[in-house]
């Protein structure tokens, strides 16, 4: 048995310790907001926060995540600045990439509460969105930063 701490709750799962955290979250715990696209840490759709840091859940084993606090998009409050900004700027198209990008943004804004445009580009340059929601993501990140300051 593996025990995980997800979105403030203790969860026990029966999975091989080497299973990527991604599949345990999705298959065993039914947390399908954590997406699969590449499986090789190239896209960012599987991102979760592990002890407040953005981590690609396809590339970490469930065993490694045992002692940490895991947060998925469901674990952020509905009025989280990132969620508000993402709605306000009407960011998602298909939406598949968004939870991962939003969580990476949460991590980024914590480290860089007043980002310049260049810093946003750099911080989110390793995520993929095929629908091309980038122009709106850029605006939403700035808005989330402003909301956080208030």
């Amino acid at each position, binding site marked *: 048995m593996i025990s995980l701490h997800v979105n403030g709750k203790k969860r026990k799962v029966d*999975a*091989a310790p080497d*299973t*990527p955290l991604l*599949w345990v979250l*999705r*298959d*065993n715990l*039914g947390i*399908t*907001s954590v*997406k*699969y*696209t*590449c*499986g*090789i840490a*190239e*896209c960012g*759709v599987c991102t979760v926060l592990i002890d407040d840091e953005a981590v690609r859940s396809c590339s970490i084993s469930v065993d490694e995540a045992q002692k940490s606090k895991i947060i*998925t*998009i*469901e674990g952020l409050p*509905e009025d989280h600045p990132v*969620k508000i900004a*993402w*709605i306000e700027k*009407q*960011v*998602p*198209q*298909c*939406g*598949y*990439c*968004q*939870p991962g990008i*939003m969580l990476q943004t949460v991590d980024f804004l914590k480290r860089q509460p007043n980002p310049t445009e260049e810093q*946003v*580009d*750099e911080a*989110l*340059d*390793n*995520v*993929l*969105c*095929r*629908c*091309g*929601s*980038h*122009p*709106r*993501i*850029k605006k939403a990140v700035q808005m989330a930063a402003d909301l956080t300051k208030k």
Partner: protein
Amino acid sequence: MMKNGITRRDFLKSSSLVIAATALHGELVLFNVSPAKAESTTTFKPHAFVEVAMDDTVTVWLGQTNLGQGTHTGISMIIAEELDADWQKVRAKMALAAEVFKNPHANAQFTGGSTSIRSRWDLLRGSGAAARQMLIAAAAKEWGIDAKKCRTEKSRVLNPDGRHLTYGQLVSKARELPVPQNPPLKEAKDYRIIGTARDRLDIPDKVEGKTIYGMDVVVPNMCIAVVARPPRFGATPVSYDTNAAMAVKGVLKVVPLEDKVAVCADTTYAALQGREKLNIQWTTGSHPELNDESLDKLFQASLEKPGAVAESTGDTENAFAEAAVKIEGSYKLPFISHAQLEPINCTAHVEKDRCRLWVPTQGQTWSQMAAAKTSGLPAEKVEVMTTYVGGGFGLRVTADPVVDAVSLSMAMDRPVKVMWTREDDFANDYFRPGSVSTIKAGLDKDGRLVAWSHKVASPSIMSGLMPEQVKNGIDGSSLHGIPDMVYTLPNRHIEYVMMDLPISVGFWRSVGYTINTFAIETFMDELAHAAKKDPVEFRLDHMEKGSRPYRTLSLLAEKADWGGKVPAGRSRGIAVGSCFGSSAAHMAEVSVDRKTGKVKVHKVACAIDCGPAVYPDAITAQMEGGLVMALSVAFHEKIHFSKGGVKTANFDEYPLLTMSGVPEVEVYISNSVHKIGGVGEPGIPTVAPAVANAIFKATGVRLKELPFKRDLLIKG
């Protein structure tokens, strides 16, 4: 066609889908409502599209797939407009696939060709208007007054004496009335929902992570399957280790499927590991010598062959011979992938007398037909539940995963979700076809275009997917944008050489337009330069005055201040085109570092004329997204082949454009009264040529190949 091509061909053959530039004729047909009426006694559902509940909730039932393009909200806005509904009370829900959701101009339910709204514009308005008229009639009867005296506003019928009844209160009376067949429609000046800013209905759930895509479907007692597919064209399994796969904890069964081997398991990870453990040995396949270099040679050789003549107007040869200036250009575009982020998948449950599908599809009818054929059940016994879709871009009209999921559900006698990995996705995509072309054109002494000769060689999409659409060796989709180019020319000759390759090709957002517009619009720039004319002026001079593309290019030139001051160090390029009923134009502003060849795209401005702009913010989003995708294609994307198969396996070998490469975007929508056009696709084709033309302006180098080669831009 290779692999599953035969099956695919069969599904698609019996449909009469005509995609793309086909003219759509609008005729309002309201459906028989009796079955809908019988469904429930507590709602008013005069049409399959719209249902009013006693609590005033208006549910819009949709047959169009939600790909994130905003269509669900746009369609709801149209119906709510004519119904005069209170927008706060409107919900959008995906319906089971059904006859009524078929495209009125094609015998199929699908989401493609940028048709969702433009081919239902009258129908959607009519269904809302009919419902409204019935609610008015019900209220008038209740009050014993003439219906003409009543008005409606925000889901209420108003009596001139000050009383009102809500739509919810009128449900039981309205449902007894006949459905009017030709309800009057509103005039555009009276719109209060269409053309306004609205929040997209699906966004809150997407932000909360609640949206269920195909990959997320869970059906009680289901298992998960991954399928090992031939790594090379025409390869089949020679041997594999079933026992090793079965030894993985959670693996339930190994199921051979024609040229594939499936592993079914309790969990995704077990299925993936089981597939690995199969250690399949495959035959060499049918084209072991095929690779990037051999393909290049095949393309060049094909271009030298005589082609089938698609059009020959005037006397191009003579006009060219007599032209004062003669120019030739050759263009080369690679195979590219859809690279939609949600991998292909389908969940199926086949029971004795029914089959259910949960599938992120753009082609409900073809999914249904594929399931019927595979299961042996009649099509009406196949229920298609369309899930949310993590990107489609034309790929998901095909039904490959349906066949596998249905076969496996039968083999396992339980629900099965078949999922592809990213590697499966790249290897089995229906790529945008690689294409080569040459254009020869002549200008007279006044700089007017007098001859245009165009030849394209490429594999044909239609010969694989809709063979009945190929006539006399011509696949119209391979020539998209050439016979219907936005310029009027007296002498034009168009030829096509159809190539026969084992590579699957398919519809990729804007299909052939995205290929041929690159050649045409960079070539037009070269001609303008040769004629010593301004690129906008030269283009306008060769268009029908006042035509949609003429207006669109003029709008862009004005809004983006073409001819105005260009910021220091930057250069501008422009391109225009029409497709899927709309016109679009792009202006790119770039700078080029001649030491490294690196291009920075600073800004792109875009103008679109799609007729009435139903949902402006969704149009803007489509233009923005299309721009990013098209820039990604222009700078980065190319599928590689080696040893008779697809070499590109994952995103590390297929980089997409990312945040730092995304420029500032300006979108100008011309909300015209002209015929309604499509939105999903028209924003793609003119991006790459606008950028290439800007690069020429900056460097004097003409880029004629995609993706752009950086070394060509290095000086010294």
